[in-house]
């Protein structure tokens, strides 16, 4: 692990910065209740919409609540949602990818369904799903994971199709190993690098999707703060209190940018060929992180 991180940082010095920033954001989110900042829900109507200054380093919001504490408290929710989406869509995508890559019959049906799901613009489908299921953190996680898992499935499927042809897999088949063991030991383990890269991108996408849904009032509801619903509260004050709009958005951008930097660097390290001259824009390779 240490060797891996060192190799990563040597090739991309910026990755060191991204790792430090991500660690800081994660630590702040975990330690939020114990940090020396005002409680995120303490209302001080006398101190409404104060610009950044002493006592409130990032200013206050429309209820006089401290923006720094709310940005940190939001991180807890937004990162947790991102992690949950990543776990769910990686699990579902891996299962679907292994099945479709390994069994021709599953491929014919399941892949058509996944193709159909990918024909919807991501945010629009997530929006409609949450509207039907009802706005809550759980439904939001299900909706975003449902939108993004077909992309993971495609990547695992491509790896499975390639690995299935390898001599050691054919040898395992000849030795009478069970399909479950072949898929787990011989295929999944060798398909991990692109899968890990994709999971990083899904994490980043999930944070962006959560921001958009919460901004539209379809995510976690106030008073529990998320980066997205803070922006929803803030956007009407863009003229009078621009800092209220600026800081929650900056938290999103830094988090997502660091995740994308990390995913990009790991991809280049795992697949040097892809880093130099990339192949034709096929639907096989790891796609560039797509927005919203």
């Amino acid at each position, binding site marked *: 692990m240490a060797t891996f991180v060192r190799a990563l940082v040597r090739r991309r010095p910026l990755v060191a910065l991204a790792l430090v920033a991500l660690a800081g954001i994660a630590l702040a989110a975990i330690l939020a209740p114990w940090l020396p900042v005002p409680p995120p829900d303490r209302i001080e109507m006398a101190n409404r919409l104060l610009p950044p200054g002493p006592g409130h380093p990032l200013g206050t919001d429309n209820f006089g609540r401290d923006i720094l504490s709310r940005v940190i408290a939001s991180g807890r929710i937004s990162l947790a949602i991102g992690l949950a989406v990543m776990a769910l869509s990686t699990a579902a995508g891996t299962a679907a990818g292994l099945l479709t890559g390994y069994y021709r019959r599953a491929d014919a049906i399941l892949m058509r369904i996944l193709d159909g799901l990918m024909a919807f613009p991501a945010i629009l489908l997530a929006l409609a799903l949450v509207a039907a299921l009802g706005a809550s953190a759980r439904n939001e996680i299900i909706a975003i994971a449902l939108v993004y898992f077909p992309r993971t499935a495609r990547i695992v499927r491509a790896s499975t199709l390639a690995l299935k042809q390898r001599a050691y897999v054919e040898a395992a088949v000849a030795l009478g190993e069970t399909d479950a063991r072949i898929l787990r030991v011989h295929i999944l383990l060798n398909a991990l690098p692109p899968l890990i890269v994709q999971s990083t991108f899904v994490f980043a996408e999930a944070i962006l999707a959560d921001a958009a849904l919460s901004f539209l009032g379809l995510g976690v509801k106030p008073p529990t703060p998320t980066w997205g619903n803070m922006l929803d509260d803030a956007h009407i004050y863009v003229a009078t209190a621009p800092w209220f709009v600026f800081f929650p958005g900056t938290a999103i951008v830094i988090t997502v940018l660091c995740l994308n930097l990390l995913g990009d660097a790991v991809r280049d390290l795992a697949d040097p060929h892809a880093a130099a001259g990339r192949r*034709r824009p096929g639907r096989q390779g790891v796609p560039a992180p797509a927005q919203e």
Partner: protein
Amino acid sequence: MARYAAGRLAALAPVLLVVGVTAFLLLHLIPGDPASVILGPDASAGQVALLRHTLGLDRPLPVQLVLWFERVLHGDLGDSIFLREPVTRAIWQHLGPTAGLTALAEALALAVAIPSGVLAAWKQHSRFDQGFMLLVLLGVSIPSFWTGLNLIAVFAVALRLLPVAGYVSPSHGVGPWAASLLLPAIALAFTQAGLIARMARDSTIEVLGEDYIRTARGKGAGEAAVLTRHAFRNALIPTVTVVGTSLANLLSGAVVVETVFVLPGVGNLVVQSISRRDYPVIEGVVLFVALVYVLVNLLVDLLYAAIDPRIRY
């Protein structure tokens, strides 16, 4: 070419089937009875029964699915509960701003992305290239609605150059129309430019490694001629495919950006329909946008095959 087109069309059928079934199922995902959810707690039993009948919810699910497909194939997406008009008319009335916004954003993105991508490839590993790659990553890491809010803060509030929000129909003049769409289009284009520029850079790098580029340089062609005449045109071909994908992202982003800029587009229609629990409209818009996306990608694929004879199905 005809065989390729036929093959692509045939491959489309199952995708369209899945798209249709997914859109159909949206209404049935509502926990409990959709009719009472739509009408709210104050509705009488008679009203609920009437809406159940209007929506066809009183029939067995497979029958509903068949009837629904029959309606959709005749271009009937049902009626809006709130607006009391056909869903297709509501979409049609909201199409203008969305079409203008996505077209303007795509044009801006292409105009910036292709030259800078080619330049970054030519200067690969240089300072320019590194800065370029960082900007590309930044583009895909910024929520476009937040970019939009910042643009409002700078260009509309502080500098007073452009309107804060609102839409001006092109019938009131092209200038005011473009001015009302410029900020949201820039917000959307930033992300798309990143994706397109990256593809332009990668495919130019690949082309620059080809034998015919070495030949061109070997016969003494100037670097500008090599770049424009030999590399650029071949690198453009794979870049065309991104345009199809980026349209989905633009339409997705437009949903949120239209809300920020109060543009009366399809995205705004769907967001308002969600708060009105107007499920036929939500279902109709989702289906409509997916169809547009599938058709544009088909066109892009056909175009791709037409300009690059090496591609065959």
